[in-house]
């Protein structure tokens, strides 16, 4: 039994909840179409499994990048699509997820540390070492001046309330964990993430 179906219709069927692999076994495979050119491109790409960075459905994505892994070749992401194996998203992406590639390559991406000095009207590029060094200096000066070991009642509180920290619920657990480990043990209590709002 051979049924004529375009690649697009085929994916649509898969998306409707039918297992596309078993369909293929029945000879129910898509006709070669224009899309096969892209398929060819993808064959030579590195495929990386990832998760959409926007909402909390956690749709599976496949990121395709160019570059052969050589030491002097940087991978460059050129295509992102839904992961058909993912039990929740089954290959689908919403209008947000469909634009992920433009987020990765956004003109608004920051590439270098910068500082805006007090009263200034512009950014100035600085090195990581200078940026982190100046920030650490600010932190230590403020912590040493304002850390409270005992409060007015004489109770041990060991906290630092004059510097605060907002953590990122778009970042990974590992970034979250090390952030918590560092921030809390400096004594900070004005510490929240987007879950607060």
């Amino acid at each position, binding site marked *: 039994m051979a049924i004529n179906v375009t690649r697009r219709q085929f994916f649509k069927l898969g998306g409707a909840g039918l297992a596309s692999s078993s369909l293929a076994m029945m000879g129910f495979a898509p006709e070669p179409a224009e899309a096969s050119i892209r398929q060819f491109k993808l064959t030579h790409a590195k495929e990386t499994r990832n998760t959409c960075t926007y*909402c909390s459905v*956690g749709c599976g994505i496949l990121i395709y990048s160019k570059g052969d892994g050589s030491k002097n070749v940087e991978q460059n992401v050129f295509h992102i699509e839904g992961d058909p194996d993912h039990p929740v998203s089954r290959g689908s992406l919403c209008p947000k997820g469909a634009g992920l590639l433009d987020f990765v390559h956004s003109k608004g991406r920051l590439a270098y540390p910068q500082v805006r000095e007090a009263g200034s009207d512009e950014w100035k590029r600085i090195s990581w070492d200078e940026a982190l060094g100046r920030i650490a200096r600010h932190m230590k000066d403020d912590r040493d001046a304002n850390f409270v070991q005992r409060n007015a009642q004489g109770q*041990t509180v060991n906290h630092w309330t004059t510097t605060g920290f907002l953590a990122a619920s778009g970042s990974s657990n590992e*970034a979250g964990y090390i952030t918590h480990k560092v921030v809390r043990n400096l004594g900070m209590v004005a*510490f929240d993430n987007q879950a607060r709002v």
Partner: protein
Amino acid sequence: MTNHWVDIRNANLILSMGGNSAEAHPVGFRWVTEAIEHNHAELITIDPRFTRTGAVAQDKAFIRTGTDIAFLGGLISYLIETDQIQREYVLNYTDAALIVRPDYGFEDGLFSGYDESTRSYDKQSWMYEMGDDGFVRRDESLSDPRCVYQLLREHYSRYTPDMVSSISGIPVETIQRIWKKIAAMAVPDKTMTILYALGWTQHSIGSQIIRTAAMVQLLLGNMGMPGGGVNALRGHSNIQGLTDLGLLSQLLPGYMTLANAKEQEYRAYIDKRIKQPTVEGQVSYWKNYEKFHVSLMKSWFGEAANEGNNWCFDWLPKLERPLYDILDTFERMSKGELNGYFCQGFNPLASFPDRAKVTRALASLKYLVVMDPLNTETSEFWKNYGEYNDVDPSQIDTEVFRLPTCCFAEDDGSIVNSARWLQWHWAAAPPPGDARPDTRIMGELFLKLKQLYLDEGGVFPDPILNLTWDYKIPAEPKAEELAREYNGRALEDLTDEQGNVTRRAGDQLAGFAELTNDGRTAAGCWIFTGCWTEDGNQMANRDNSDPYGTGNTLGWAWAWPMNRRILYNRASADLQGRPWGANKAFIWWDGKQGAWVGADVPDFPTNSPPSQGQMPFIMQPEGVGHLFAGQSMVDGPFPEHYEPFESPVPQNLLHPGKEKARNNPAARIFDEDREALGKPEEFPHAATTYRLTEHFHFWTKHAELNAIVQPQQFVEIGEALAGEIGIVAGDWVKVSSNRGFIKAVAVVTKRLRPMMIGDKQVHHVGIPLHWGFTGVAKKGYLVNALTPFVGDANTQTPEYKSFTVRVEKA
């Protein structure tokens, strides 16, 4: 979510309220349409607007923003008065039969113990009554006037259909029709799932709205059931993970809490958190709190944490205020009480209420550090963008550092979706330019600070100098190292009662049952223990098989706790351990094996037979679900409707003339912010903010595709209101609150219709939130210029969903 995305397909009825998942979680929403098509489920939406979710719903109601407790409280009364509850479930799996102390009461909109001067309650009377045996008294007949069931009945008897209608604006017939459909889910083999999002959270009564939903689900016997549950559809991709890891002002990882200043003694701190069973024989899993806590301290301080120094109890900061939440912090910041602030992937200038106050606060800082992949508004709060950001840089002395970070495509690690699944991801490419992962930035910053303390000394350096830091490249802790650390490992050989070694020193732990309170184990986040075992990274599992056909794919990623996909799943079986219905079979007691078995990892002691009488809600000291919240909420053991702080309605119709009970009496509001609330005469329109499907907060306006499909800021206005103020579609309108204004294009629509509240006609204005002054979309006004600086009494989550504005032609 107590349940998970795919499980929505098992529902017989779906109540979408306080959320618009077709718009905000479109791919997750496909499981709603799956339930409609293949499980003959019905979808009901309740929202102020005709939404995309409502567009495919079989039934819907339009509700005035902020009145959800009125609707749900009325539903509770209806279920009780018409006796449409899952009686066996309610009697055994909830606290309906437990007796409450005689001094608990509720009068004129206030619970017993209210202190007006502090806007808080003394919660002493909000407790069950203890019998002489040391356990809670109970009345199996549910007839004692002091039992929870009768108190519940009495409390909601005021929520008649007429009362609910006059508060919410929903016609009585619609209310009764929907209540009837929901009540049909009280039979054992049918379930309703409830889907909500920030439309419930972002109110001054937000936590209590969600509690009311949980109470409804307990009465219907829908908790722990496939196709049931109370399901928070969360916002950011890892907002669940950062909550689990405790990055909130009062928390430690795994929902442990910091001590307050009064808690000076380690033992008292622990004993208060070790919850012993209050009903005989119950599990009460928090009784293990000390094991989780000591393992955390060993993870953070290693050898330096020992029994002699109370595992470094005093090294952790103690709280002098109930919360150092963002409202409290920006209040202090606006008064010049903060010097430094970090924004790691967070854009408070756009996200926090009362933008003028936020600007004032940031401008009073000495230093601000922004770590982000994108050029956020916050990082340029000092820069003049005309009317979009009208500031004078020369008058702002804040030093601002902007550090470029990786995005999702550029680092390894795990994130936790709404369903509590930890899914590992892999880096596909290096970041642009000199951008770095957050883990490395935090690592290097910490090492620089530590070096300063080593070189110069300084105040209380102990926790800094002793923080464990055994990463192979100290400045660049790897995701794998950190994941192994929060999972936890044995520090010494662990043995069973016979002395057999069950876990070698140095080995990864397989679950939190292995944790000890004597320093032999370390684990950075006990609820994640089991995610990276001796068998490797469980979060990287990618087997999507579903052997029971329930949509439960245990081999795909790893869910906390212990890879369970539906919380409280013991409640999916009856007292004898049999499924409530053949089509709802999920886990059950297998007498031959002497174990609980089925499609999920039992959320229960695996070998505890039904005859032992342990009840499903193992985190509660009573073993049962709480209809009566006891002392766990700050604003009452039963939810009560109070008006939003800015409301088009001048009084709480449940308590006319009682000024103290107009708004949530236990919600905190600072004097200056109370002054900044608008009066209904001046700001007559009810406003609510929300997302659009093409955008994600303030990120996607930086992505070209999204900027193309939804380029320009607009507000939604009903035809009637447009007629009143003389505008047509496409006109520019100015929307003002007492705190600021925005200008946007008017979308005049049938999707918003006026409602009758008492004798007053109320118009809603819909305000999508995605535009700002950076990015590739057209510039727009940050909508938090409008929103009030007041939050939920329990969580301090700002009231973004209910406030008042005036709309006029621009």
